[in-house]
């Protein structure tokens, strides 16, 4: 089984204890599967009901399939401006 690197930002770095997560990935796994795996980690209590995930720098839907080489990021509620 391969893994995918998930980038973390802002408060999530503190909640999950580091700037990235390595998440196991079955072939054909989706963003939704990834979020499901992340929910089992310590620190996941900070996640909202539907966390936003970016794949290759674009917001992704939960049914998008994830490749291990994708650039994946878990996006905390944005607060720019």
């Amino acid at each position: 089984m391969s893994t995918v690197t998930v980038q973390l930002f802002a408060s999530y770095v503190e909640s999950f204890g580091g700037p990235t997560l390595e998440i196991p990935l079955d072939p054909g796994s989706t963003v939704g599967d990834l979020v499901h795996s992340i929910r089992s980690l310590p620190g996941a209590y900070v996640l909202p009901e539907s966390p936003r995930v970016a794949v290759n720098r674009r917001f992704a839907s939960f049914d998008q399939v994830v490749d291990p080489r994708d650039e994946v990021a878990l996006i905390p509620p944005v607060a720019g401006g």
Partner: protein
Amino acid sequence: MRRSAIVTRAIDPATLMAEVQSTEFGAISVFAGTVRDTNDGRSVTAIDYSAYTSMAESELESILAEAQDRFGVMGIVAEHRVGTLAIGDVSVAIVAAHAHRGPALDCTRFVIEEIKKRVPIWKREHYADGAREWVDPTARRVATT
């Protein structure tokens, strides 16, 4: 013309206005966000802005492209600053120019609203009591009194 950037230096709205200005435009609309000394009743001394920079750049550029498409061809420039900002510093500036005022005004509002929704930038406020907290606009506000 169109340009957007995530910057680590001071933002000067007047420079951005000069950049978009053209004799074909009759209306320039500018929005600048600045660091306030108070938020939700707490005294703020500074704000750290951090970004997922590569995605923030592409999202910001997408927003401007959508704005140009939606409001007609026009001059538009936007910059968002990251790093530690002091009270009064400009965190974001948007300048839209158009032949007519309606589209210029609509465009500026559209861009700041979209930035607030989908550009991956976060801020951590420094408070006068020494505390530092990440701001979560989606969190329910808890009364502090």
